[in-house]
């Protein structure tokens, strides 16, 4: 009889599962607090104060900390989540039940799966070796992210279709068209980045996210080397995460609530959390690709020591950058008005796509010239 699983493997699998739960917990917490951040930042930008009432009974009485936490609304995500959980489940009579229930799950799973390849720091071992902190540091990391996040559109499309209502349906159709359109520009904008990092002669090859991040250590951030790629990627990221100015799928003013018009209580909550999880992951990936990941500032070597303190500081620095980007997402949302649908399509197909192609060709030429010069100097 063959052994079911080697002894060491059991341990490894359990460890991976544990890490996966930690990661999901961290991202979901960040997603929850992004909702709070959205409410707070929008309030501040509009001269309001935002949620400042929710408080846990015993925290209230902590002298200075308690009121501060209450004023910042730190317990609001908890209350919001509980509200979604305890609300009455209303299922309209005209929906396709099976897909109606399936759609929120399909929306959430890709949002949580992309984080498996997300590197978020480095671990310095005692013997001087360095390993990347990630659930799975795949060689094809960025492609994995694209592949899995492209599955997210099914959730929205199915939600729109199964709701059997015209507003939901229009939202679903819009979102699938939008996501397909911007995926092209997004992919094309990243090609020059990988061409640059994996140029002939460099030590890197492949599409690994951690290699991209490490290539920016002590040198220029890719955001400085390839501003156009970064810009196109950022715009496409806004479109892919369905954030304003690209929130076609739900545009409240013309589609009631878009694809989730017919959804309520926890099913709506899942859509909501999935959207913010997308934002968190998207911000983290932009940080890895263009903002140097967990490395300090451009042209400066990491100032932290190569031990566990350094690891922690690196992860913290990575988180700080990611949080800034999440703030940027929110900031843009409360600044720009929504595009019209034809404008979105026009921008995607006849502006961003050609721009990304030109960008690719230019960097192709630059990389070739550099490569030829290097070959001539050999």
């Amino acid at each position, binding site marked *: 009889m063959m052994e079911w699983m080697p002894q060491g493997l059991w341990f490894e699998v359990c460890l991976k599962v544990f890490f996966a739960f930690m990661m999901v917990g961290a991202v979901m917490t960040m997603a929850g607090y992004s909702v709070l951040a959205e409410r707070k930042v929008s309030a*501040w930008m509009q001269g309001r*104060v935002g949620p400042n009432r929710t408080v846990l009974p015993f925290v209230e009485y902590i002298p200075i900390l308690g009121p501060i936490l209450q004023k910042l609304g730190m317990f609001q995500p908890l209350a919001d989540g509980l509200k979604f959980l305890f609300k009455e489940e209303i299922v309209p009579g005209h929906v396709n039940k099976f897909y109606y229930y399936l759609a929120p799950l399909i929306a959430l799973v890709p949002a949580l799966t992309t984080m498996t390849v997300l590197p978020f720091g480095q671990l310095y071992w005692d013997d001087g070796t360095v390993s990347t902190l990630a659930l799975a540091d795949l060689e094809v990391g960025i492609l994995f992210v694209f592949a899995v996040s492209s599955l997210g559109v099914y959730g929205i499309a199915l939600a729109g279709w199964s709701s059997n209502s015209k507003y939901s349906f229009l939202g679903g159709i819009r979102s699938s068209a939008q996501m397909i359109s911007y995926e092209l520009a997004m992919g094309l904008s990243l090609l020059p980045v990988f061409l640059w990092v994996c140029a002939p002669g460099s030590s890197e090859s492949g599409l690994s996210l951690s290699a991209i991040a490490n290539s920016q250590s002590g040198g220029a951030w890719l955001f400085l080397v390839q501003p156009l790629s970064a810009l196109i990627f950022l715009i496409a990221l806004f479109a892919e995460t369905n954030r304003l100015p690209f929130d076609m799928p739900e545009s409240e003013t013309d589609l009631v609530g878009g694809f989730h018009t017919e959804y309520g209580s926890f099913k709506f909550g899942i859509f909501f959390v999935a959207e913010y999880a997308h934002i968190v992951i998207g911000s983290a990936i932009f940080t890895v690709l263009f903002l140097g990941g967990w490395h300090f500032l451009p042209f400066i070597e990491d100032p932290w020591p190569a031990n566990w303190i350094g690891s922690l500081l690196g992860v913290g620095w990575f988180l700080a950058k990611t949080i800034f980007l999440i703030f940027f997402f929110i900031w843009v949302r409360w*600044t720009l008005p929504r595009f019209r649908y034809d404008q979105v399509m026009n921008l995607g197909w006849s502006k961003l796509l050609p721009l990304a192609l030109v960008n690719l060709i230019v960097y192709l030429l630059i990389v070739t010239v550099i490569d030829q010069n290097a070959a001539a100097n050999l």
Partner: protein
Amino acid sequence: MAKTVVLERKPLSFSERTYLPQIATGLKTTFSNMFKPKVTLQYPEEKPVIPKNYRGVPTLVKDPNGREKCVSCQLCEFVCPPKAIRITPGSVPEDQDDREHVEKAPQEFEINMLRCIYCGYCQEVCPEEAIFLQDEYSSSGFTREEMINNKEKLYELGGTLPDRHYKWDKKKEAETDGNTH
């Protein structure tokens, strides 16, 4: 007819056509807004300043001597468009000597706040200046019965207003001087 001048719109420059500088300006504006003082009123703790002529919940008031002003004439009941007011007339209690000049007093005075439309006709029509729409704006209750303000509640809400006329004082003065009307 005025001559219409059609102005040529200046063609947008390249930077204007990318919209990026405009977006940056917008972002700057919203960012600076984040640090401006907030206009939010922390409502139950802080109350808004109510203007002088505000029409709040209708209330009954007493005159500066603490006497009931309403004489139960029922004009307000008749004028009330949604028929929110209901008065049961009664006589003035015998033991109130200082009000013996008044013929009637309301035995019960009810204003149904679920019907009231805050039009202020009752205040306008009242000959005794007994009913006023004052600055109270927040009335709530758990049942329909709770939302019917009875006489006691109306006086509690109304309190005493400084009276400009002292009509009954003047009348009484005139009467004691032997100069009725």
